[in-house]
């Protein structure tokens, strides 16, 4: 994935003629922190984990990015994801730079108490490097509002009450209304605009969603609320499909909160489908909302959707991207399509700094306004320069970071 992002950045940089020195400056992370995180396990033994925080670029503001707990977390991975955040915040024009962090651990093997001690110790170790005006972590893979609450509490103990040091906090602890649905809501907004551009309408469109986690479930629910027929969804256990449309509201209530595998879902007209069958469904919009690298050169040729909206990070390999482009499929890239999450994270930070709570309607209205403006900006580059959406989005992101950099000077 790190190679792919770098490839997209180089392509955009070349078109913009930024020059090799500026390109190098924009590719390099500003700072990388590796910390040892020792905790006492419930059985009395000590364990030491490795924590990472990569701060990629702060030209446009305090750095922003998730914190993930996963066994495969390593410096390369975190570095690439930090870079992605720099371009994503720039594409939607929120005044943040990019960062990412993680702890190499398997949270399934840890009790709640162990997770809390791990989170608090990591916050102690990384504390001097983060802060409301420096670097603001957020939930990511295997981290949630509770983890953010522990981080906020631990940070506030040492540095004074600081709700703005993390986002994605519980709504009862200075979190934002609308944060949970934000990424899915942004995805649906983008899908609606893309369909309208192609002369279609979300209200009459058919949709397939791969992944029924936080992003996929909200995307499916909101699309169906806006009239779309969601004909297929899947999760790690496989997919379900129904030509006349799935009962997404029921699926959401029964399978999304709390998470349950869709495998035991029974309803009239519903059949089981494989992941591959879902990707090849005859629909207007395909929303890959699970893992990276699911659309490959092997399966991209059979995609029948008119629009692919990348709700997941990097679901399309560069080879698949070219194949889809060659077949006239519009691919709206992750750094635009799934930026609703970081946008509302920004709103949460703004509310914390303001000490003022926004209503859910206000958050959703501001989110819609940001997604509309961002889509229009990227679309302008697509039309004027005759580029695909991914390259155009990277040009917008790279351009904004480069402008901030040259305005500030080196």
């Amino acid at each position, binding site marked *: 994935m790190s190679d792919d992002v770098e490839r997209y950045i180089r392509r955009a940089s070349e078109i*913009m*003629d*930024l*020059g090799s*020195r*500026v390109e190098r400056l924009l590719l390099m992370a500003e700072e990388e922190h590796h910390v040892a995180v020792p905790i006492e396990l419930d059985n009395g033994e000590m364990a030491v984990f490795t924590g990472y925080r990569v701060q990629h670029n702060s030209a446009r503001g305090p750095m922003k990015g998730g914190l993930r707990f996963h066994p495969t977390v390593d410096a390369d991975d975190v570095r690439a994801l930090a870079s992605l955040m720099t371009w994503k915040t720039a594409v939607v024009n929120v005044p943040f730079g990019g960062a990412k962090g993680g702890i190499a651990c398997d949270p399934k093997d840890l009790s709640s108490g162990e997770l809390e001690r791990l989170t608090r110790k990591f916050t102690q170790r990384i504390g001097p490097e983060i802060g409301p005006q420096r670097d603001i972590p957020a939930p990511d893979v295997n981290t949630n509002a509770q983890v953010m609450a522990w981080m906020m509490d631990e940070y506030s103990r040492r540095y004074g009450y600081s709700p703005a040091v993390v986002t994605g906090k519980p709504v009862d602890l200075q979190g934002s209304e609308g944060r949970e649905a934000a990424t899915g809501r942004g995805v649906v907004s983008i899908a609606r605009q893309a369909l309208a551009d192609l002369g279609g309408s979300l209200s009459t469109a058919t949709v397939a969603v791969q992944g029924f986690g936080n992003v996929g479930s909200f995307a499916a629910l909101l699309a169906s609320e806006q009239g779309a027929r969601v004909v297929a969804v899947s999760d790690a256990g496989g997919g379900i499909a129904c030509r006349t449309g799935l009962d997404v509201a029921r699926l959401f209530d029964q399978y999304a909160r709390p998470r349950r595998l869709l495998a035991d879902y029974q309803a009239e007209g519903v059949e089981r489908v494989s992941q591959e069958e879902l990707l090849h469904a005859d629909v207007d919009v395909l929303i890959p909302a699970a893992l990276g690298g699911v659309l490959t050169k092997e399966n991209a040729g059979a995609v029948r959707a008119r629009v692919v909206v990348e709700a997941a990070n990097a679901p399309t390999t560069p080879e698949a991207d070219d194949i889809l482009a060659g077949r006239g499929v519009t691919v709206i890239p992750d750094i635009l399509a799934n930026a609703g999450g970081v946008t509302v994270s920004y709103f949460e930070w703004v509310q914390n700094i303001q000490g003022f709570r926004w209503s859910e309607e206000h958050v959703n209205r501001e989110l819609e306004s940001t997604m509309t403006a961002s889509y229009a*900006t990227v679309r*302008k*580059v697509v039309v004027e320069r005759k580029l695909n959406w991914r390259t155009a989005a990277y*040009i*917008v992101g790279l*351009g904004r970071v*480069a*402008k901030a*950099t*040259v*305005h500030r*000077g*080196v």
Partner: protein
Amino acid sequence: MAPTDTVSPEVFPLFGSLGADELALLADRATAVAVAAGQALFRQGDRGESLYLLAAGRVEVVASEDGGPEHRLATLDPGAILGEVAVLIDAPRTATAVAVVDARLWEISRSSFRDAVAGNQRWAVVLLLSIARVLAERLATVDGRLLAAIAREREVEEPSGGGRVAELERLRRRLLTDWTF
């Protein structure tokens, strides 16, 4: 050697199309002048009243700016016209003409030249066209030098050798003009 008694078309090809009578009219108006090597025919700032046709020898045209060091503008060989600005406008000589080796020239005064042009004498019309061509060519040369000088000035402001500040400044300008969004 150029003949000394008349303005010879062999030395001045511009008069090649004139007949004998027309050459005679020119000879009437032209006065022979000799300048020894190292001597000045006229000096920058002098009041100019006539133009010269170089019949023999070699003349160097030099000029200085505000009394500074002299720069050589041209080295003229037989057949050349010099001092022509003086017959067009009443202005001080813009340069100094010095004989490098003994030189012989034909001097034509402003009034003679203007009378001849007014009288539609062919030699004067031919000479006028020739002067116009010389001035046009000189203007083209000056334009080229001016452009080069402007480019050099820019170069000084923005060294292409890659000072980082200059590189960023160039990038900034380009980003703000080419990539507005």
